């Protein structure tokens, strides 16, 4: 749980500018993809893509018809060239579709290779039962083994810190060069990743993954597509495409009968051309490329998703459950002011605040020390003889036990009120007023006391992240509800919620509240996303439809989540929703475009097929000849696939609009555009085909 005293590791620099440190080598990507496109012509591979498999079978038949035009019956003239051209265009359609998939896969493989370069066979110091160490190969380590790593070592496997404090360079996986402090028993820094490097001190670790099943191994398998299985949306779209293909196959197979009846026989080559033009080859060819590119985009954002399903689910999210600290506000709250009470002077309050925080190493504690020192406060006792009292979620306060037996505490106002009363003191009237004043400013009030006397209130200022209000506005326009969870009191939570622009908040939240909020939202049929880093976040991460664990979090949180953010930046959840929506929009837009294209192809080929039946009026494009019309429609059909590869890989530009607005916009651009564009393109191709004398 991200409590008020914990802070997230916040890497510096703009996120967009960071990528995995091992540079991804994209050279030769297109040459390799081109070669791969031919290997994918293997029928065992082609059969996985129903639309393109039908085109593949059509190609084989047209190749046979090229060599023997009279194979299925007598033909009026010798259409070897025409059949040959159809065969070539169909072949290129398949190669282009394979190429799109190979480019997307190639990008993932390049990323996997870069990650693989961080993995190398290392030796590890395995701790034996008698406490001695033995040097073993990292590949021989298994889950549960204990190992020792010292400065300069590459950490041989994923693990949980059992003992020690050390700085670890995680740039191999996160791209962030600043070292990260790792220590045992901490929710935010107790897990280490194999392949990262320890740069100071030493750690005792318990291995948490068997060989080949570590974090980097999983990441390699995912970006490489080895574990890629179809997402629910992809499956639904595959069914739709197969239904359309089957319907058109039946229509085309029964067409020769009415054609013969009206005395306008159609050749098998033209029937195949019509079938290929009508089935949704564009989306059929680009479907897997869109999915792979979506995973790739998430990986480029330094997020590891356990499945494509998780990425896609991001796009369907209705509710975001967000921690206040680190997500909505900057992780570090800073002391802004000391408000004296009970008639104490500001100087006295500053010196008590200094004494209360001298052992507090959290950013908040350090800022109290800094503010007190700025106000001229100094310690009136020897620090070495005093005793630190750590913060705990139960007591909700921390402080110092003085050498003379005095007890100085700072903490939640209620907790300090109870402490003072337990020592026989009384609570000043001004405490509630100061509490309310700080809360109304959106700050966190910490009461300060020494023994039975309340000295004042420390105003910890919460700084709302710049631009977060606009992000929430965008999410609201997209129909995503935001719920803020905070351990703060209700007044502070309300002020922060209003300033940040979240839709709802839960104040004084406990870790259990998180899972309750998620369950309540899910009960209303909503999909919920959340972030978490602690072991006590694990049930909520598992319950949420999209759970994003921070890389700095515990192993339990990472295993429960379906995504891990390598930068440990909770704000990234908002970006993930955008990526998920972009993936769904891209798939929807290209499907719309692909199906809308049929209208123009229909008007190009049907008049050509039944020219003898006197339906010349349908030739609204004024195409040169029946042959030229068929060839132009097929050439357009083939060329549109490579033309749309960049859009499939990059994704349709995302706009924060509601589902209805997006639908209207897509229908206008990709629906209407999909109807008009092929009319123009087919006419142009027809002019070229006619001018070079191909048909």
């Amino acid at each position, binding site marked *: 749980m991200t409590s008020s005293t914990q802070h997230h590791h916040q890497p510096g620099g703009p996120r967009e500018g960071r990528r995995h440190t091992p540079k991804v080598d994209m050279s030769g990507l297109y040459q390799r993809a081109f070669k791969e496109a031919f290997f994918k012509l293997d029928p065992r591979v082609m*059969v*996985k*893509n*129903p639309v393109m*498999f*039908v085109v593949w*079978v059509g190609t084989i*038949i047209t190749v046979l018809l090229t060599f023997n035009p*009279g*194979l*299925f*019956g*007598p033909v009026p003239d010798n259409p070897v060239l025409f059949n040959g051209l159809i065969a070539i265009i169909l072949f290129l359609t398949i190669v282009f579709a394979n190429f799109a998939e190979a480019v997307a896969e190639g990008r993932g493989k390049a990323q996997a290779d870069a990650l693989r370069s961080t993995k190398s066979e290392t030796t590890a110091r395995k701790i034996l039962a008698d406490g001695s160490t033995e040097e073993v190969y990292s590949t021989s380590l298994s889950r549960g083994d204990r190992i020792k790593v010292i400065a300069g070592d590459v950490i041989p496997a994923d693990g949980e810190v059992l003992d020690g404090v050390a700085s670890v360079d995680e740039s191999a996986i996160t791209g962030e060069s600043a070292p990260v402090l790792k220590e045992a028993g901490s929710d935010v820094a107790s897990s280490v990743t194999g392949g990262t490097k320890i740069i100071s001190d030493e750690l005792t670790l318990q291995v948490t993954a068997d060989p080949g099943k570590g974090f980097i191994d999983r990441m390699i398998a995912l970006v490489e597509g080895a574990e890629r*299985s*179809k997402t629910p949306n992809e*499956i*639904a779209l*595959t*069914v739709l495409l*197969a*239904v359309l*293909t*089957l319907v058109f*196959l*039946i229509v085309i*197979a029964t067409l020769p009968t009415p054609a013969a009846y009206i005395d306008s026989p159609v050749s*098998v080559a033209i029937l195949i051309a019509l079938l290929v033009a009508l089935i949704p080859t564009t989306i059929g060819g680009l479907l897997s490329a869109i999915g792979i590119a979506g995973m790739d985009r998430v990986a480029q954002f330094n997020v590891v998703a356990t499945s494509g399903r998780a990425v896609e689910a991001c796009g369907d999210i209705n509710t975001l459950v967000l921690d206040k600290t680190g997500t909505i506000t900057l992780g570090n709250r800073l002391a802004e002011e000391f408000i004296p009470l009970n008639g104490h002077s500001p100087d006295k309050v500053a010196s008590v605040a200094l004494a209360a925080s001298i052992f507090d190493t959290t950013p908040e504690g350090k800022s109290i020390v800094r503010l007190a020192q700025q106000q001229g406060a100094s310690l009136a006792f020897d620090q070495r003889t005093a005793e630190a009292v750590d913060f705990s979620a139960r007591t909700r306060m921390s402080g110092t036990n003085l050498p003379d037996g005095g007890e100085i505490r700072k903490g939640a106002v209620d907790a300090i009120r109870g402490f003072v009363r337990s020592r026989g003191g009384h609570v000043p009237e001004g405490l509630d007023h100061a509490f309310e004043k700080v809360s109304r400013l959106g700050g966190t009030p910490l009461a300060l006391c020494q023994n039975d006397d309340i000295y004042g209130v420390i105003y910890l200022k919460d700084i709302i992240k710049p631009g977060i209000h606009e992000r929430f506005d965008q999410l609201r326009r997209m129909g995503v509800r935001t719920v803020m969870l905070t351990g703060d009191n209700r007044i502070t939570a309300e002020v922060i919620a209003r300033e940040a622009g979240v839709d709802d908040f839960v104040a004084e939240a406990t870790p259990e509240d998180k899972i309750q909020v998620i369950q309540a939202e899910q009960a209303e049929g909503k999909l919920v996303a959340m972030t978490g880093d602690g072991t006590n976040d694990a049930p909520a991460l598992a319950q949420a439809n999209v759970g994003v664990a921070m890389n700095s979090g515990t192993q339990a949180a990472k295993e429960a989540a379906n995504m891990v953010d390598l930068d440990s930046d909770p704000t990234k959840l908002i970006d993930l929703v955008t990526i998920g929506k972009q993936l769904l929009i891209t798939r929807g837009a290209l499907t719309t475009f692909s199906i809308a294209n049929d209208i123009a192809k229909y008007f190009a080929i049907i008049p050509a097929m039944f020219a003898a039946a006197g339906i010349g009026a349908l030739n609204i494009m004024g195409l040169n000849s029946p042959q030229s019309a068929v060839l132009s429609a097929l050439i357009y059909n083939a060329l549109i696939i490579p033309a749309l590869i960049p859009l499939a890989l990059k994704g349709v530009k995302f706009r924060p609009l509601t589902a209805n607005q997006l639908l209207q916009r897509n229908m206008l651009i990709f629906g209407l555009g999909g109807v008009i564009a092929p009319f123009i393109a087919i006419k142009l191709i027809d002019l070229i085909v006619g001018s070079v004398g191909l048909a």
Partner: protein
Amino acid sequence: MNRFTLRPLETCNDWLEHLQQRRARIAVGLFIALCLNLAIAPALYAATDSLARGNAYALGLLGLVVIGLAAYLTTVILKPEKF
């Protein structure tokens, strides 16, 4: 005296099991298609005047390819996760 032996049935069973193996599926499919075509093509040949005997066999096979594709697409619709 036992005049019946199960050996021919066992042999037949072994042979069927062999045919069901993955590697033999395509060959078996082709064989069955050709066998079916032995029934379809002559009917087609008899029904039309303009077709040569070879055309009838080719058209029969084309029809079977179309039926095969329809069966394949139906499988995709019913079990999409396999593709």
